[in-house]
């Protein structure tokens, strides 16, 4: 799975391109944590190119939001499609994230 990282001002937007599942989820987590550390926590997860999330993907998202919660923040998730949003709702972990419609709104939330 390709993971794009783009800088919007001081905020890094990480955009995984493909399903967040199985071993890809672990690789994605490593890359996300590295960008998170380098960017002092100013990170947005752009889920616009993530068609589906499996149990491993969900676990990864929960681990990431727990990591970010240690610094008093929540994982900012933007542009998630309906399938992903429904999975998050059904598993009851949706409230652990901050949801945004698009990247710009998520980036502006750091102001």
């Amino acid at each position, binding site marked *: 799975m390709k993971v794009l990282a783009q800088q919007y*001002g*001081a*905020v890094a937007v990480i955009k995984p391109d493909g399903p967040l599942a199985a071993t890809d989820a672990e690789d994605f987590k490593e890359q996300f944590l590295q960008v998170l*550390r*380098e*960017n*002092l*926590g*100013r990170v947005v997860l752009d889920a616009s190119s993530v068609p589906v999330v499996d149990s491993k993907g969900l676990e990864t998202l929960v681990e990431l939001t727990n990591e970010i*919660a*240690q*610094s*008093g*923040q929540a994982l900012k998730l933007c542009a998630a499609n309906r399938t992903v949003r429904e999975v998050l709702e059904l598993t009851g972990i949706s409230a652990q994230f901050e949801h945004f419609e*698009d990247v*710009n*709104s998520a*980036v*502006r939330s*750091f*102001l």
Partner: protein
Amino acid sequence: MRTERPVVKKPASRQRLLMRGERLVAFVGIMVAGVFLSAMAGSLWWALQAQRRVSQAANVEKVRVIGESLARTAETLLTANEVSTLRAVIAEAGVKYNLDSCRIVLPNGQVIADADPLRINLLKVPSRWSGAAETYAESSAGKKTSVRCPLVIQRRGQAHLEISATTASGLLTDLEAQSGLGVIGALSLIALLLVYRHCRVRLRAIGAVRQALLAASAGEKALGALEVSPKFGPEAAAWNRILTEKKELTEQIVLARAKESLQSGHAASGEVGAACDALPHGLILVDANKRVKYVNGAAAVLLQAQRDKIMGADLTEFIHDERILEPIQRAAAGPTHKRTIIEHERDASAGGGVLRYVIRPVRREDSGVAMIIIEDITQQRVAEKARNEFLAQAAHELRTPLSNIRLYVETALEEGLNDPATQAKCFNVINEESGRLERIVSDILSVSEVEAGAFDLKNDDVRFQEILSQLQADYGPQAKEKRIEFTFQSPPKLPVMHGDRDKITLALHNLIGNALKYTPEGGQVTVSASVDQSQIAFDVTDTGIGVSSEETEKIFEKFYRAHNGRAACETGSGLGLALAREVVRLHGGDITVQSEPNQGSTFTLTLPIIQEAA
């Protein structure tokens, strides 16, 4: 690999000859050797003396017995006048008993018999002779023993027998004794060396451990300095194991204390600690020695370090800027009560960004504590900079048409009152500039709305066929005027989608307007549409001035104008492309560009087809 080296450094002179741990062995070895050799030499001397005395006494006795025996035999033989037999007996006795001399002498000194026949000076013994014989006498001089026995020969006279013999050295001669002593000494020394080697191997470890113990009692704590080379044997290995266990125990105790301290810190804070962890700003408490007493999660993230490592550590390991450390020291230890705010720009190598440190003292009765609040203001700084640039650019863009309007209003007032042609020309320009001003203001408002998230999209039916026809009609005359070959290529049937028709039309307007604006006379501009299952794409291709690869993303930023000579000649706010891309992205699509400077550009607008219609 560990190298063998002295446990405790000693002056070189003391280690030149002896290795570590050997001084003790050497001392003991030399003492034992000395005593051993002395005892051996004394014993030998005493034994030799005793042997010499015994052998001398035995020799005297032997000579005496021989003398008496020979004397009786000589008396008998001389009485019987058996002189030749007597001489034979004397000669045989001299040889048999290894005598130095053995002879019979008359009172006048004439020798009638001798062990050495050549010394006989009276061959024919007289029948009678006069004179008194010598008395019995014994004498010893050194090793030589002499005996003189008187002889009484009936009817003939008196004579005496003289015997002398040298005491034999017994079993050993002096040379033999000295050789034996040398051999025994050498063997003893070899045996001593072997014993020394064995002791040295065994005692080296003990000596080394002893030196290490002395060093430890002198205050040496470094494990490396106290360790003994394992080559010294099991004692050294045992000593090293004790040291290792001590080190591990010390580490465990330190770790346990640190954890205890950490846990007590957490327990003391309780819910307050949890609340501090929920803070998005970093919070650190340090004592007067700059030791960290508390750090929350956000501070650990902002200092880019593990929280456990920061806890209890020296803050200077994580913050190096003296501008920050100095007020922390002052707040923790000094009399100040005021807060200090420092904005620190991090090195680009550390990830860049701007952190704001608020430092203030927390007074307690027992000790001073400084509180540091760290806030990440990087994004605010970026936004501030963007806003300032936006305002500067907007003011600049608005001033140009305003200046023109004011200029032409003045001209109309001054010269146009009497000249309707001038007046009409002025009003035309004012009208155009007002229109331009309106577009700029409209674009700025639209961009602001997009940024503020207040940009409403209408939900119309977007019929691309109609839009393309309209665009062709709108830009046809302009293209003709510039003699640009302006063509539209599209499939016979284009889909209808839901979206904001005006905004999408505005985006296509922008792309086609730019293509015509930046394409020189005689060039080509082609608008082609293509449709697949999920999206519709419009390629606007021109043979214009193009954009360099470095600028392909920047041209979508607000107020950005390409650094190109010909681009600078054209008017434009630098908002069009930014707005077009925002509008398209709000519809889930995007605008991308492929371009070569002076070769032309292709701007591609893609939109997802949400709902297909005939």
